[in-house]
């Protein structure tokens, strides 16, 4: 939290003035019972109507000054809190964007999104509340007590006893109930989860005829929830009656002590009324304070979560920002004894990978689920750093490229076809900001996506919904391929990105890419052996190790794993039919 406080730095003035004006307001509020006491003790006693009107005017004046002070305070508090939130949001967004794949993997995107949204909102309103109330409530509570002392010390002693007693009750009940609210939340989460599960899994549940058990599960979870809710309810139900008793008993004692003091001529009748008034003020403020503390605690938890994200350091370092000039070497890309393990993973995902690629070659990568195919290609644009070994592109270690340069050189089509809300053209321009319509259409044609665009009203300006929901899986994949092609990358990586396409379209796509640019180096990751069959080199991965490298014919002769994969898709006679 402390380091987040620097975001209030630009709002120092506001952060000081807000509580200050709040104090002023409280101060004026504390005068009110005193003025009233004077009306009774001087005005009424002497029958001085002029004095009464004067004091009455003073009361209204106090109210107006209080209102002005408090509006000023509210404005400053709002300004500081909103400014704080806006600045924090900006920085956190920028920070998250700088995190590398490793951090995103460990933290998880949904967590990051909650930090960005609800957590910041909670902290923002916490700051607002804090600036407004943290001074006011304790000030009124103790102020009332001090005022009581100015009236009569004997009567004030009742305040000294009452305030701690009330605090113990109010804060005690809160302390007991807060952890239980957490329990309520977790049981409510369970109910939500069961409901969700039963919707998503409706088919499976019915297929297995488990409706009755699911109903029982739900009823049980629901009953558990009710039980804890009723229990918490019982405890919080005590708050009002108990504080009511304490405050009113205190007033009763006050009356008795007051009666004695008046009788002895130490104080006047109006002073007794003032004391009773101060007592009533205390309760209201203590309850406010308790609520404030609940809110602040919540905000602090959120602030800590945000802080944790802020403290994440991107694990990738940009070693150089000077653009690397291409050198003409025979080998364009080289993996030199590369080993790679994900953060916190026990076993490496890739072990001792070495291979060389010439410019313009097409490289197929094949292997079973979890064999390390995607891990391998993710190393090329430096989404992750190799744990051991070295990767060079154009003769230079990729660590010596500016991140921006290496990523511009590489066009990657990820497994999950992601499109963004906006028009098709806007999505295409992710690859190249100033792409012309001709360039975009060319890329779309190569990606076999021209028909997708032509089928839409407004063509390139047709809208895509968030996540590309208004497109089929195959259409999405083709558009993401086109997006990567628009920037005419030097290295194109297709990470199993044609899986939703039928074989015919897949084949046409590969043909079109091949014709596109002789100098483009292409990596194709696939589980389909037909997709990579005609690659210049095929890398066969098994359990993170290269078990074969060569052309289709070579591998079919020499590589056992490759044979197994191939024949699993084309039982021996397959080729004849083709």
């Amino acid at each position, binding site marked *: 939290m402390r380091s987040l406080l620097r975001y209030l730095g630009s709002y120092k003035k506001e952060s000081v003035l807000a509580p200050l004006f709040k104090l002023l307001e409280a101060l004026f509020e504390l005068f009110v019972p005193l003025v*009233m006491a004077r009306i009774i003790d001087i005005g*009424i006693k002497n029958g001085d*109507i002029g004095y009464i009107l004067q004091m009455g005017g003073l*009361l*209204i004046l106090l109210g107006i000054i*209080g209102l002005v002070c408090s509006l000023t305070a*509210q404005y400053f508090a709002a300004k500081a809190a*909103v400014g704080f*939130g806006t600045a924090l949001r900006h920085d956190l*967004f920028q920070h*998250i964007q700088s995190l590398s*794949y490793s951090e*995103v993997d460990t933290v998880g*995107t949904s967590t990051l*999104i909650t930090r960005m*949204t609800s957590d910041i909102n909670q902290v923002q*309103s916490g700051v*607002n509340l804090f600036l407004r109330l943290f001074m006011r409530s304790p000030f009124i509570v103790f102020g009332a007590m001090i005022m009581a002392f100015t009236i009569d010390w004997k009567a004030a002693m009742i305040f000294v006893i009452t305030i701690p007693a009330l605090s113990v009750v109010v804060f005690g009940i809160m302390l007991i109930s807060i952890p239980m609210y957490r329990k309520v939340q977790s049981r409510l989460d369970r109910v*939500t989860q069961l*409901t*969700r599960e039963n*919707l*998503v899994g*409706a088919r*499976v*549940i019915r297929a*297995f*005829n*488990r409706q009755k058990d699911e109903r029982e599960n*739900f009823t049980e979870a*629901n009953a558990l929830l*009710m039980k804890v*809710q*009723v229990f918490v*309810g019982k405890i*919080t*139900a*005590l708050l009002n009656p*108990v504080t*009511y*008793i304490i405050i009113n008993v205190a*007033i009763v004692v006050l*009356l*008795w002590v007051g*009666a004695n003091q008046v*009788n002895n001529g130490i104080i006047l*009748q109006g002073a*007794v009324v003032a004391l009773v008034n101060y007592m009533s003020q205390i309760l209201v403020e203590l309850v406010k304070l308790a609520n404030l503390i609940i809110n602040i605690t919540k905000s602090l938890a959120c602030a800590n979560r945000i802080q944790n994200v802020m403290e994440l350091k991107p694990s990738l370092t940009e070693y150089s920002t000077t653009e690397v000039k291409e050198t003409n070497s025979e080998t364009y890309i080289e993996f030199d004894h590369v080993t790679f393990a994900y953060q916190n993973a026990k076993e490496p995902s890739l072990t001792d990978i070495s291979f060389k690629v010439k410019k313009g070659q097409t490289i197929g990568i094949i292997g*079973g*689920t979890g064999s390390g195919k995607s891990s391998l290609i993710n190393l090329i644009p430096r*989404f992750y750093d190799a744990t051991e070994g070295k990767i060079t592109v154009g003769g230079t270690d990729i660590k010596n490229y500016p991140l921006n340069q290496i990523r*511009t050189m590489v066009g990657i089509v*990820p497994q999950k076809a992601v499109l963004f809300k906006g028009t098709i053209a806007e999505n295409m321009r*992710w690859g190249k900001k100033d792409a012309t319509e001709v360039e975009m259409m060319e890329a779309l044609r190569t990606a076999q996506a021209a028909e997708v665009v032509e089928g839409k009203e407004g063509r390139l300006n047709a809208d895509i919904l968030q996540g590309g929901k208004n497109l089929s*899986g195959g259409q999405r994949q083709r558009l993401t391929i086109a997006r990567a092609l628009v920037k005419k990358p030097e290295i194109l990586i297709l990470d199993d990105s044609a899986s939703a396409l039928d074989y015919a379209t*897949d*084949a046409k796509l590969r043909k079109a890419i091949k014709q596109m640019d002789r100098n483009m180096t292409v990596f194709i990751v696939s589980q389909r052996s*037909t997709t990579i069959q005609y690659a210049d080199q095929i890398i066969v991965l098994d359990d993170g190790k290269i078990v074969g490298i060569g052309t289709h014919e070579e591998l079919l002769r020499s590589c056992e794993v490759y044979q197994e*994969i191939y024949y699993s898709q084309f039982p021996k006679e397959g080729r004849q*039919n083709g």
Partner: protein
Amino acid sequence: MGKEKNKEVMLKVLRSIRPYWFLVVLSFVMAAVTVALTLYVPILIGYAVDEIVAAGNVNFPGVWAIIKQIVVVIVITALSQWLMNVCNNRITFRVIKDIRTKAFHRLENLPLKYVDSHQYGDVVSRIVSDVDQFSDGLLMGLTQLFSGVITIIGTLAFMLYLNWIIALVVVIITPLSLFVARFIAQRTYTMFHKQSETRGKLTSLIDEMIGNQKVVQAFGYEDDALKRFDKINETLGEFSLKATFFSSITNPATRFVNGVVYAGVGIVGAIAAVNGVLTVGRLTSFLSYANQYTKPFNEISGVITELQNALASAARVFELMEEEPQIPDAEDAVVLADVDGNVEMDHVYFSYTPEQKLIEDFNLNVKPGQRIAIVGPTGCGKSTIINLLMRFYDVDDGCVKVEGEDIRHITRESLRDNYGMVLQETWLKSGTIRENIIYGKPDASEEEMILASKAAHAHSFIKRLPQGYDTVITEDGGNLSQGQKQLLCIARVMLCLPPMLILDEATSSIDTRTEIRIQKAFAKMMQGRTSFIVAHRLSTIKEADVILVMNNGNIIEQGTHEELLAQNGFYANLYNSQFAL
């Protein structure tokens, strides 16, 4: 929402509270007692003040008597307040529980058509947050409304009883606070609306950019994203400032109005006291009324909006609970036993929406032990056939028969018991791996379970998980790969070993080597049993006895792999395209 509908919803709400009518009555009585006594205390205090006049002029026995009265009143008030709270709690949470349980039971009985055509989030929010809103707003709201109204009436009555002139002052100034509150509320509402609209925009941008950070980084889009973010963030800042400020005006403003009422009572009361119409003690009572008189007004205006929200939520919950359930099993429905695997689809017509025809005059005859494969482009109706076979949907015309019996005359339970199903959408429960595998057969022994897992080639990866079979997986198996999830779903079915099997893209995320091994296991287990296989990968279905090639809701070709290739039609085209280039 129309008045009529509101009334209707209200009636339903009352019906759901009816089992607790005794608690409701008790709560209302206690509320009335609490309010009356709370209002009585200031009067007693006023009496006491009147006994404390000046030095040497204090009536101690009088004060003592009043103090005794006050203590009794306090204790009774606190007790009735506590009782009221406890009653309200009970009513609220019990009604919530009842409604949730009922809604969930209905959910399990709704036709899949409902589940498929409604967003999950929407249904979940009806059962979870709408029910909460409904109970909080309605039950708490009603009691607050009740005690608020009693407080206002009671205060008025007491004030009139004490002194009608001063009472008039209070009555005249108080509406001021209502006007102020209304004025602020309107301003605040527009600002809050704008704030939440902008917040929504920002959230969806964050959702897209952070959610797909990998793509953003791959395209070096970070700076553009930040620019777009800043633009919305700034607008949000402006609206937030206004919304926060306006909403925070309410408290000081009502405090000010309160202060004016207080001053008014003070001035008029003091003048009255000078004229001997009012004692100082009565003035004290008045002052404390003035302090709290505006409170119930503010509360009531808050409660009314809350009530409106609650009614809207209640309407949504009831809508779900009154949704037409699936047609119950016919009374004379037979229990399907001794299934050989004869399945027949006879002139079947079906479509999800009347405007879009899908399956027309579909005929199929499957003999025991046959392996039927269904292929075809996306959207051709492959999965629909499965929906009809399992009776997730009912046919529009024609019929589906198992062992010669129309499945509408078979109990759903026994029909589905005879099918094993693995879908492309892998669904796993949150719970342990073990719980998931034995989902279809909860009484399976350890050996049976391990055997099934081994057959599904899931055993080896399960063994490698931190707690083996007792590893807890999160909702929808988030921490497993798609392929691993499919293996678990297959193990789940293998354990039940039903007479008929449906595999809808069941192995699409499993690598082909493992797939072949699984298929061999299936083949061995399914010896003599009927199976339906839907797949994209042609290698998956080549061995089938009959391949149905579907397009636009119809079978366009039918035969074995070799026969279809010889026909040189749609299938042959599809198949050969694999080897193009």
